[in-house]
């Protein structure tokens, strides 16, 4: 399956979901659905969050898994938190 595009390739603005389809019966639901903040993160950030949750939120375990030091993982987590906060602020502003 293709990766979910997050930004418009023409103007760079955030995309919204227009249609959702059932893979079983083919029913399609149309509307304007916002992409959740987590899904709006870059693929690398999403993988990081996924691995972090799987590691029970242990930075020490993440550091060992990735072969980097504890503060490097901590710094990576802080970057992801900042990015999530930025996305949430943008979404709040877009929703008025």
């Amino acid at each position, binding site marked *: 399956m293709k990766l979910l595009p997050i930004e418009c390739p023409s103007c760079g603005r955030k995309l919204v979901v227009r249609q959702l389809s059932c893979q079983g019966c083919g029913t399609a639901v149309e509307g304007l659905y916002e992409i959740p903040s987590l899904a709006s993160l870059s693929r*690398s950030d999403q993988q990081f969050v996924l691995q972090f949750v799987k590691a029970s939120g242990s930075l020490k375990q993440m550091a060992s898994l*990735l*072969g*980097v*030091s504890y*503060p490097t993982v901590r*710094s*990576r987590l802080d970057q992801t938190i900042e990015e999530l906060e930025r996305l949430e602020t943008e979404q709040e502003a877009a929703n008025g």
Partner: protein
Amino acid sequence: MADQPPHSIEPQRRPKIVHWLFTPFVYVAGGTSLAIGVAAILLAGLLGSLSNTHFDGVLDMHTGRPAPTRVFLLEGLINWLCLAVVLFLLSRLVSRTSFRARDLFGTQAMARWPTVITALLTLLPAYQRGTAYLGWQLLRVGSQVQLHSADMVLFGLTVMVTVAAIVWMVALMYQSYSTCCNMKGAKAIATFVLGLLLAEVLSKVAIVKLLIM
């Protein structure tokens, strides 16, 4: 950008030697860096005692004054602790994220490992003859020494490598601060320079008060 430190979250391949030399704290911190760092500080002090080379300040290195071995060992530890404590306090004030003190103290100790190289260089006969020559010419200290052209070249090279090692050490100190306290940009550079200056003064005062007076 193959030589850049990795930032992706994929498990890292074996770091290259250039990463270990210039961005070691991406890979090592905490207790490991503390053990390596303290060992390096003590080794540099021990080697320094063989050529009467003192690391008598966070960024200082002076050859000539004889002293008991413990003075050479303690100087390195004082330098490390002064900078680590000052940077710890500064980053507690300005950093927006939490961090572990042992990462900062450990990596700051390890950042001093280039002093082992400079201490080794001071054991070279050409360096010893060069400092003795300068001591006599400038301060009339010691005895008159004849300096050959080969000695001059080797002494010049040693001084250049020593300066490069100190610059490298400062770069590692900054990398330690930036990585462990998650500080970047102008704020990180400004607070690091301020911390370095404060720690330099503090270490000079501490060494004079505790070890010389």
